[in-house]
């Protein structure tokens, strides 16, 4: 299992250069799936039409300024238009109104067509994931007809390339909104309601998602990465994620597990295969396999993990995880144990 997972990690590592541009940044102008593609096409059309209208309006204004009749202060005011009809003016204003209506109709039509296209993503054989927004992290539960195959993870989704994904969106506290600019449009997560978001990634890569509805102090540090990988690799990852955490193998990690269970950690976090079953905070069964900690706040390195455990409020003020003043030896053992949770 471990070797298989390491292979999967290496494969993701090999993807990294290709995804390097996308890794830290999200980019709505480089769609990697059909949903984002539709939105991108609509955006291009809107940009084109608006640019055309802008050029026409500014052009008409400049022509009007250039061709306006000139007079000096002694010349009487030109009130000729009060007495006589101006058919040419009427024609051009009429034409401008007609063009405006036509262009608005085009935009409206394109919006409707895009909306329908977004709703028509074929969902045969879709992967079902329940995504719950919390202050300030994401909980993902991978659904499966076999109840024993359901597993939870946090702040990082893995999805197979080319297979549709149906996200069921819920919120536990306040309104959040999920947005993967490279993959799909935004969708709100509203407490007490259930929404869905369908997407598909056609190119493998690492895509950044972000909460897009202000949800409190750490709204900005509420990041959800999506790793799109070939189906075989995804299946390996899913099989690995279903497994319980390995028992600690040496004295230090055993001590680390003891620290985890006997201090504040086990009050909120879960590690499957142990007595820790808190449901309030990210599931840590495979925490070491994730790219970041604190929902994209810090890179997942031993030193960052130690700093995070000692005082999460330094990196993410207001987060619900309290500072933990562990003695250095306990902290080291705890970090060593958490690093084994691949």
């Amino acid at each position, binding site marked *: 299992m471990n070797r298989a997972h390491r292979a999967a990690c290496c494969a993701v590592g090999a993807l990294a250069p290709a995804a390097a541009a996308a890794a830290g940044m999200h980019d709505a102008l480089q769609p990697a799936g059909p949903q984002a593609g539709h939105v991108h096409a609509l955006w291009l059309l809107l940009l084109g039409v608006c640019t055309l209208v802008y050029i026409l309006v500014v052009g008409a204004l400049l022509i009007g300024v250039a061709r306006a009749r000139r007079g000096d202060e002694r010349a009487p005011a030109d009130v000729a238009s009060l007495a006589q009809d101006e058919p040419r003016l009427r024609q051009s204003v009429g034409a401008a109104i007609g063009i405006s209506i036509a262009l608005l109709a085009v935009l409206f039509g394109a919006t409707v067509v895009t909306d329908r296209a977004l709703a028509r993503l074929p969902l045969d054989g879709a992967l079902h994931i329940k995504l719950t927004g919390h202050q300030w992290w994401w909980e993902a539960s991978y659904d499966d007809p076999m109840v024993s195959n359901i597993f939870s993870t946090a702040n990082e989704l893995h999805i197979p390339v080319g297979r549709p994904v149906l996200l069921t969106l819920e919120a536990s*506290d306040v309104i959040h909104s999920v947005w993967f600019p490279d993959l799909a449009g935004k969708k709100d997560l509203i*407490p*007490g309601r259930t929404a869905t978001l369908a997407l598909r990634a056609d190119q493998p890569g690492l895509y950044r998602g972000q909460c897009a509805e202000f949800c409190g102090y750490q709204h900005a540090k509420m990041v959800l990465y999506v790793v799109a990988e070939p189906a075989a690799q995804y299946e390996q990852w899913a099989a690995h994620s279903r497994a319980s955490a390995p028992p600690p193998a040496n004295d230090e990690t055993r001590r680390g597990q003891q620290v985890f269970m*006997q*201090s*504040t950690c*086990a*009050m*909120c976090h879960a590690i499957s295969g142990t007595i820790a079953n808190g449901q*309030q905070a990210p599931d840590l069964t495979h925490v070491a396999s994730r790219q970041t900690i604190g929902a994209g706040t810090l890179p997942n390195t031993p030193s960052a993990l130690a700093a995070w455990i*000692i*005082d999460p*409020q330094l990196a993410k*003020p*207001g987060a*619900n995880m*309290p*500072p*933990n*003043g*562990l003695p250095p030896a306990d902290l080291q053992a705890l970090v060593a144990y958490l690093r084994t949770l691949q």
Partner: protein
Amino acid sequence: MSSTRHLRGTHEAARGAAAPGAPLRIVAVLLAVLALAACEREARRFEPPVGKAITPPPIRMSAIQPAAIDTTTTIAPHYEVNAYALSEGKRLFSWYNCNGCHANGGGDKGPALMDDTWIYGSEPSNIYATIVEGRPNGMPSFGGHIPDNELWELVAYVRSMSGLVPKSAAPSRNDDIQAKKSENRLLPEPPQSSGVPPASERSQ
């Protein structure tokens, strides 16, 4: 109910009596107290005010101390006038599954917390000790599992359920299902017969 009002009245009178002298001075002091209370109400401390480690302070059952007053046991009042601390306490009350036995304060397997009956005392230090040390017949001891500042937030929230903290700071709205009145509208009520174990079954 009326005895409660009477109690509150004497409490406020006692506060007023702390400023002897002309009525004007009393008004000035009251205004200053109000202004300070208002500041305290909104302050959000992400850093715990005393230490970062779990360092259980000595539980004092008497307010009298020799020499200087040790502040570690007088921090409860700071939490009780702070709306953020109280709402955090309310969140933690369900996070740490206090609801599992005390059911939103109404009592279930554990005794009710919204009445005016306290088996082990209603002072912040009493409640702190109850949470940290546990009590016979089922109350777990949470010492070492909950950081100090969260303990004091829980203590403040538990007291808010029976109207023992200022109304201005107590949580004023439940975020989800309205299981009971919000804490700033709750007054300590005499215990109801249903759900509370008879005195003989209660450990003293």
